[in-house]
């Protein structure tokens, strides 16, 4: 096993490996400026998994693309700070970014068929990723490394399968190949953007197992982006809930999932059918639709869909954006809500539903 710590990227201070601070991402479009991400801050430590939950358009993918440096630099307005192992990424030259990307930070995409090149053999694509960051390595070494990685992610007969094209792989195998490609340079930070959404549950379970095994072996940090709360519950140490381009709740997985303090998180948890719930009860949907990021609502971004605005005095929710602050439960659990004691209000509402 390679030692993941003794390296140039070892942070000088005790700072977590990934620090995102007040990140704002805007895209100019024909209809106006899209405020995809506003004032987002989070940290991830080595060996930990952060789950980012949110609906489409909540900014979860855009924020991760910014960290990996995959946005269109000419057209995207980015401000704030992203530090990976102490290196500031924003404003980094494309050349240095390329050295970092793949080597320190890697990404697994949702659609493996689209992310792999259809004309090149799987083994060659993996070897290419290795050669890009190991210019001294011979082609033969790179190929051996590719086969070894395919073996590591559980592809049977890896030396033969390395000569296959992506279309000859099944969906689960393609996703494994992509994980192998992301991990071939032992990155310390892995972004997994909906890595199992397109897969069947049994294959999804295999891939999640694989990611956890690899994390144990390599000690890497993982940012896991998904809309599936069940996957988050099983994979994440910490959870960040995003809505309308902002973080609305952050805390340990257990705290957020069992005692949500933000009506949106609560609504998400209440709206999904559970395997043990009484099938006769009606689902409680969140009314309305996610906000437009061209014209985000004033005040709290969730207020047009929130059931609890009545419990807040005056029109505070419409007027003022609540801060992301710790609740009564402790310092580690942040929420963005005007409710005095959201945990209690939400728990009461849940109880009322059950009666």
């Amino acid at each position: 096993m390679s030692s993941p710590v003794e390296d140039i990227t070892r942070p000088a201070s005790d700072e977590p490996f990934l620090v995102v601070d007040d990140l704002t991402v805007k895209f100019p479009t024909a209809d106006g400026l899209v405020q995809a991400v506003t004032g987002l801050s989070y940290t991830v430590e080595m060996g930990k998994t952060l789950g980012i939950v949110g609906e489409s358009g909540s900014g979860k993918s855009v924020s991760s693309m910014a960290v990996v440096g995959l946005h269109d630099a000419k057209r995207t307005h980015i401000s704030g700070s992203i530090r990976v192992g102490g290196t500031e990424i924003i404003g980094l030259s494309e050349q240095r970014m390329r050295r970092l990307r793949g080597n320190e930070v890697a990404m697994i995409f949702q659609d493996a068929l689209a992310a792999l090149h259809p004309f090149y053999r799987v083994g060659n694509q993996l070897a290419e990723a290795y050669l890009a960051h190991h210019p001294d390595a011979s082609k033969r070494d790179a190929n051996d490394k590719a086969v070894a990685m395919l073996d590591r992610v559980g592809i049977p007969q890896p030396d033969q399968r390395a000569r296959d094209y992506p279309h000859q792989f099944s969906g689960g195998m393609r996703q494994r190949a992509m994980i192998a490609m992301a991990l071939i340079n032992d990155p310390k930070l892995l972004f997994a953007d909906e890595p199992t959404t397109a897969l069947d549950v049994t294959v999804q379970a295999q891939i999640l197992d694989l990611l956890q095994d690899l994390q144990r072996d390599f000690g890497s940090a993982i940012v896991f982006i998904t809309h599936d709360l069940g996957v988050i519950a099983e994979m994440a140490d910490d959870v960040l809930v995003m809505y309308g381009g902002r973080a609305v709740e952050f805390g340990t997985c257990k705290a957020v999932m069992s005692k949500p303090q933000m009506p949106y998180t609560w609504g998400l948890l209440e709206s999904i059918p559970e395997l043990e719930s009484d099938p006769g009860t009606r689902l409680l949907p969140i009314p309305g639709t996610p906000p437009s990021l061209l014209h985000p609502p004033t005040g709290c971004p969730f207020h047009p869909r929130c059931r609890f605005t009545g419990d807040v005095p005056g029109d505070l929710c419409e007027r003022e954006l609540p801060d992301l602050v710790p609740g009564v439960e402790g310092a580690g659990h942040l929420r963005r809500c005007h409710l005095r004691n959201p945990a209690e209000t939400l728990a009461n509402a849940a109880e009322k539903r059950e009666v």
Partner: protein
Amino acid sequence: MTPPETASDVGTSTSTDSGSSWTSNGKPLLEVQDLVKYFPVKSAGLIRRVVGHVQAVDGVSFTVNKGESLGLVGESGCGKTTTGRVLTKLYEPTSGSMKLDGTDLAPLSAKQMMPFRKDVQMIFQDPYTSLNPRHTVGAIVGTPLRVHSVVPRSKVLPRVQELLELVGLNPEHYNRYPNEFSGGQRQRIGIARALALQPKLMIADEPVSALDVSIQAQVINLLEDLQKEFEIAVLFIAHDLAVVRHFCPKVAVMYLGKIVEIGDRESIYSNAHHPYTQALLSAIPDVKQAQVGGRRERIHLEGDVPSPINPPSGCRFRTRCWKAQEICATQEPPLVQIGKEGHLAACHFAEPYDSAIHDAAKATRAAAAHASSAGAS
């Protein structure tokens, strides 16, 4: 279970006068018997000989009662979507029968099929590709009304508006195009279109899987309300087992073109007997797990679903099954009743959940130990 073949003539006469004849005198609304759909695989080159068949659906039988919903679950490639499409005759069945109110739809020509089309309607998975972007919502929802002339031309628009209101859309929006609506709203348009002809049976093929989590519940509630109000039978095809459990009192589990287990909600979710159903259920990530931390204990299935062109002999699940023995390769297990009435499973070694977990864990532990020792060398 198989009713006499002659019943079809009687069925035809009752089902032609639509609307009032929703009663099915105790018989199921839809009876599917040994339904088979093979797709030919042709060789490359000029002659294009048929070199094999994709056995997408291979001998599926089930019944759906009036106003009832049956869930069809399974992994991609198991034939659940093909089953739905054959039932709407978007695909011609290779063999087998599918009786709607006693009339076998399988042998009917496109022309003969016409009067029955309005009884079976479909809701598609992807609301972005299933609506014509160049037609207004009014045209989309109104087309079935015009084609089947169920209302006079002058009444089409008011009826369309009525339908839009029914599915929770603004009736004034009939003049808009699909791109002006969000995903959830588009799915509502698709539902309004399916509802336009007051079908007896709706085939809902993954109706919520393309939608955001917060929108899914809205659409599921809508479908539930409509089903109750109009007593529509629904064949609910989905891969999300929690959603199916919520929506369907009866569930069928498919694997490689065959139903491996079928029964009521209780039997499938709390008392599954087929190892595949058990594995499928154990693989669902559970929100409640957050309180415990870590992953849920579950059955590890090795590998992928085999190719339906050349499925395994005997039991099709045996290549991934931890219980597989010699008999599984030679003899195909029949779908037989186990325990409660209506709970059928196709497995030589069908047994309830707990012992299965135990066996599976043992098998995977052994396999893992074997793999790590092989890897270490």
